[in-house]
């Protein structure tokens, strides 16, 4: 199937990526070629097949809900690009 540049632009918004015009063109061509390749899966009859999301199909793996020490605030904030010692700082969300 062909992929339009507009579709790729919409996906870049969903993926939280800014792409330049040249990148959009390149990405459109590359994704179209990969998507065409993966469409061969359409040949396989999977009507009676259960999906397999994981090689080890585990369930009920929740750990006990116990209070434990957390990472100290200083350590949690240490790698943040912008912080004020108490919070992570981000551009204003409300105008």
């Amino acid at each position: 199937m062909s992929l339009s540049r507009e579709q790729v632009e919409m996906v870049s918004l969903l993926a939280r990526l800014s792409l330049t015009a040249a990148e959009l063109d390149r990405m459109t061509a590359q994704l179209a070629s990969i998507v065409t390749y993966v469409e061969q899966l359409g040949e396989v009859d999977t009507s009676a097949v259960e999906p397999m999301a994981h090689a080890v199909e585990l369930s009920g793996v929740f750990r006990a809900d116990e209070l434990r020490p957390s990472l100290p605030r200083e350590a949690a904030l240490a790698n943040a690009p912008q912080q004020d010692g108490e919070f992570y700082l981000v551009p204003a969300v409300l105008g």
Partner: protein
Amino acid sequence: MSLVELTATEMLAGLEAGQFTSVELTQACLAQIQQHDGRIGAFLKVLGDAALERAAEIDARRRRGGPVGRLGGVPVAVKDLLCTRGVTTTCASRMLEGFVPPYNATVIDRLHAADAVIVGKTNLDEFAMGGSTENSAFQKTRNPWDVERTPGGSSGGAAACVAASMAPLSIGTDTGGSIRQPAGLCGVTGLKPTYGRVSRFGLVAFASSLDQIGPLAHTAEDAALLLEVIAGHDPLDSTSVDRPVPAYSQTVRQPLAGLRVGLVREHFAAGLDADVERAVRDAVRVYESLGAKVHEVSLPHSKYCVATYYIIAPCEASSNLARYDGVHYGYRTATDVTAEATDDEGALVAMYRRSRAEALGPEVKRRIMLGTYALSAGYYDAYYLKALKVRRLIRQDFDRAFEQVDLIAGPVTTSCAFKIGEKVDDPLAMYLVDLYTVSANLAGIGGLALPCGYNAQGLPIGLQLQAPPFEEERLLRAAHMFQQATDWHRRRPAL
């Protein structure tokens, strides 16, 4: 033979016999790195002082007669995808340049507990996405057998550093073949354990249902030792499986009697290099000479493995890499995005988009885009759900094959190491490099690559062995049998 060319098992014997110290060994590895890594580019970070300090501490303990761990004083390198407390963990991405984790991956803790000496963090394709280690944001790693060629990827640094005798052991990760493929192309032994065998806690996630950590070494015996140290249940990883860890390092020397080796009909098709096919068939004859019986088996869905993988892995990657938004850690754009923010997205989303655009490389962006597309409304059933169903069929193929044989033997890659830059502009060609390896990740089974020959240009050829889930012991024993009967694994590149 110089110290650095010894296997880890030989190093341990020498350390225990007092023939040399861990400090001497570590110095020898550091000197080898210093002398050759400028050309090879295997390491992103060398931990010289810390390694020597650690080695001295282990030597002192051994001299006092104190307890020493299973790897007591042996140098080990670690792929820079595993979190190391207080040491930068970059995943070869500008996004995590300067990121210093406040905790260790479980595998790192287990290496410390076994008294390994960690000599450095090795290069990889950015976030482990790639098959050539050309996608690192910082440097390309070169194949020690021919520096014009790639070492494979994504654990190219981990494989190259062992091949170049910079460390006898290294830790890699394998999402679609990233341990086995570079092991095959660099002439070393690499094992992707069964999914769940080794804790992924502290491994920076690429595709969580496929990623697995494993050892690279010169020999199966050394890989057995390293796997024994890192394997086992971890309460911090809910997907790690709670079952006992066999004494791989002890059982590896026991030959397998009555071994049934499977050759997959679909593996020997058009596209397989003639030298690779010849070496693999010769390797199978070695097994026959050791008493194994060879049977042809079929994996009818193997032609769909790469397509299945390149839906599932990018879908999981797009979700896992959503965390890199320039807020909690990682790169944030220096540009004031206020002006470019639209009414729809606002300044925060504009900041996310620009930060990710500036810090992530082309391959990572491509996979995020592919995964986001395949998971988006209207396409989920056609791509992601479909791939999950085909994944089950792939697993069922293996289950049926393993009713007839104990192991599957075959090529690791269609050809020997390719030239740097050769496939870099053709993502699909690069994805097809994983043809023989991705199936093990999709099915969750174990796979091992070991050297089985060299082509006319002197480039290594790998043999892949695959076994049912949790049969690493069988893989390692079979690989050791082969290495007792051949000497391909003893060759070292002329640096």
